């Protein structure tokens, strides 16, 4: 009996070891966001085992989510909004309400602001899609900011789609850019800036399978460092965001409007050395993350937008269901810069942008499952002409030369986000994911056959879900 029992115990022990090994293997395959959720569940289970109650720990549906508090409960489906809640339709009244709510948020933010902070102005200009970078560069020169890069936090393509219903791509359409700067008076015109654009599908960075893919800003910052161009000479690192419509079928039921990053633009003051250097000659071996002494902070915006801006073609409904949350990504960007106290002379980039391909057709109707390209009022554009607009923007990205004061500022911003916004804005970002293994020859052949079949059946444009990492695909052997 004793021998049988020992054998049984030994078998169970081996089984447990095998399960442990499998769990460890599985965990290593999780993305950072999945790992965050997993760790959240483990911590919750441990807390319950330690005697804490479910009520104390809150609703488990909020585990791993960006928002908690009332907005988090609404987005997670725990709580519902009052459907009888009335919203303001009249634009002047809407604006008045927006200012009133903003004043309250500004008052709350006051206690978190950096003692030494710099002005933050966001100037929006209109360009044509095809020549957008040339036009923005020209504007920077005309406004004199190209000659005063120490006053510029960054520039970025506004990730909204303007006139979604118009024919054709963005080439001839209106694309807006924001210039985030600290200039409080007119400057004399300056020489045009140095501009360098890197394509995301070029193999510019040497990465092996499993190594972390570089962030657009990582690559740009290493190139700037290599060229000896610091933030005081940098006007911006702007992700090249493209928004394109992709038909999914005859009935447009699976039509997508994809915002994706095609590359990155580097803009520096006139007289800067060539920014790209030897890039492209052979893949660069750059370490993971930004160069030492530089911070790249990425914050979630879309999670907030889901709560306060449910239909992206409309104005956010006011009174806001969650008036403690910022109403626009620009407000969040400004809050970050003012709370951390980032100096424009230290800033490489400040942008509202996208990361992975993002379908703007989500949140285009109040009805679940309904996706619309139209609808919504004409809203003001940079050129003064009102047009229909689909609000995009997934992340807020800020990169700057670090200083001890900024570390305190980041701690203040984290406290502000957690306490006032009730948000974990760095959750679920999935940055610098490991480079995946390319498919084998057989899988590639099957993919090509599937492409031909899609072409014949008219399903071209339907994505298979794989998103190649930028600047390092395919990986090095």
């Amino acid at each position, binding site marked *: 009996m004793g021998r049988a029992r020992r054998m049984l115990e030994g078998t169970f022990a081996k089984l447990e070891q095998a399960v442990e090994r499998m769990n460890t293997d599985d965990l290593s395959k999780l993305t950072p966001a999945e790992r965050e959720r997993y760790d959240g569940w483990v911590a919750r289970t441990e807390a319950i085992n330690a005697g804490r109650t479910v009520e104390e720990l809150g609703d488990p549906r909020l585990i791993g989510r960006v928002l908690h508090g009332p907005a988090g409960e609404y987005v997670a489906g725990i709580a519902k909004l009052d459907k009888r809640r009335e919203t303001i339709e009249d634009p002047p009244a809407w604006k008045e309400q927006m200012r009133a709510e903003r004043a309250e948020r500004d008052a709350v933010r006051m206690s978190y602001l950096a003692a030494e902070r710099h002005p933050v102005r966001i100037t929006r200009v209109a360009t044509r899609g095809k020549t957008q970078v040339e036009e923005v560069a020209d504007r920077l020169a005309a406004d004199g900011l190209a000659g005063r890069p120490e006053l510029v936090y960054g520039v970025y393509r506004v990730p909204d789609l303007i006139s979604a219903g118009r024919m054709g791509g963005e080439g*001839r359409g209106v694309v807006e850019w924001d210039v985030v700067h600290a200039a409080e008076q007119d400057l004399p*015109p300056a020489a045009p800036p140095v501009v360098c654009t890197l394509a995301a599908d070029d193999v510019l960075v040497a990465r092996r399978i499993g190594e972390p893919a570089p962030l657009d800003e990582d690559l740009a910052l290493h190139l700037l460092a290599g060229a000896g161009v610091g933030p005081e000479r940098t006007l911006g690192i702007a992700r090249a965001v493209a928004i394109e419509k992709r038909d999914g079928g005859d009935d447009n039921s699976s039509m997508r409007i994809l915002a994706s990053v095609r590359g990155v633009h580097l803009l520096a003051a006139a007289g800067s050395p060539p920014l790209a250097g030897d890039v492209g000659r052979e893949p660069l071996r750059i370490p993971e993350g930004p160069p030492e002494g530089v911070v790249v902070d990425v914050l979630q915006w879309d999670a907030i937008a889901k709560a306060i801006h449910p239909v992206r073609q409309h104005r956010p409904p006011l009174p806001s269901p969650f008036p403690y949350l910022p109403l626009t990504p620009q*407000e969040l960007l400004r809050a970050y810069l003012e709370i951390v106290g980032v100096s424009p002379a230290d800033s490489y980039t400040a942008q509202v942008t996208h990361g992975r391909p993002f379908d703007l057709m989500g949140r285009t109707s109040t009805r679940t499952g309904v996706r619309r390209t139209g609808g919504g009022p004409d809203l003001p554009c940079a050129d003064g002409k009102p047009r229909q607009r689909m609000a995009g923007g997934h992340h807020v990205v800020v990169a700057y030369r670090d200083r001890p004061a900024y570390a305190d500022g980041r701690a203040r911003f984290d406290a502000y986000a957690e306490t006032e916004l009730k948000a974990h804005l760095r959750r679920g970002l999935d940055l610098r994911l490991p480079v995946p293994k390319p498919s084998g020859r057989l899988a590639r052949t099957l993919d090509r056959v599937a492409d031909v079949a899609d072409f014949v059946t008219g399903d071209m444009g339907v994505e298979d879900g794989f998103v190649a990492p930028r600047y390092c695909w395919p990986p090095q052997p």
Partner: protein
Amino acid sequence: MAGDDVEHAGWAIDTPASRLRRRRNPLLGLIALVLLVGGLAASVVGIVRLALEAGVDDARVVARGTVAPLDAPPAPPVTFAASAGERFTVWLHEGGPDNVRESIVAGTECAATRPDGTLARVRGSRQGTSVATDGHETIGTFATGAGTIAVACRHVPFGGWRNRGRLRDEHRFVVERGTPGDGLAGLWLLLPGMAAAGLGLVAVLRWRSGSLRSRQ
């Protein structure tokens, strides 16, 4: 939607200090306008002409007769004068659903007797392409010699037994001078007109977005 955080500052290159300016090519604008307006006008005229001219035109009808029903005695032929080499079209006068009408047309056969005694057989089931309007569909076309032409039509068995009931009804036919294509001249305006309007639209968009030029 950008709230008060954003100051709208117009077009990027629309400032006195800009080195670039957007130039719109007036020649391209003119070509775009001509293509767009001309194309649209031609399309409209083409549609109007098609509506007026397609199908049976009473002015061109030379004879009207009756198709002898299936298993009934032959109907009397209709006659008309023709000159040498002229072409004529026989149209069945029948409305209704396309599939029913097509069966009736396929079960119709006409014989045109020329002045020299030769016969031209016109069979609804053997025409390469049939042309249908709301109330008529072609049986076929034939060429004649100079003199008096006699045309007689009858229904012949076509399709299964169950579908032949309609062929036992009496239908009317007309003989029209010319071919069905004579009434489709509007297509020569409509199709190029639409193509020109499409090109014009592309040209307008291209003209509107302009191109960047250095300000000298």
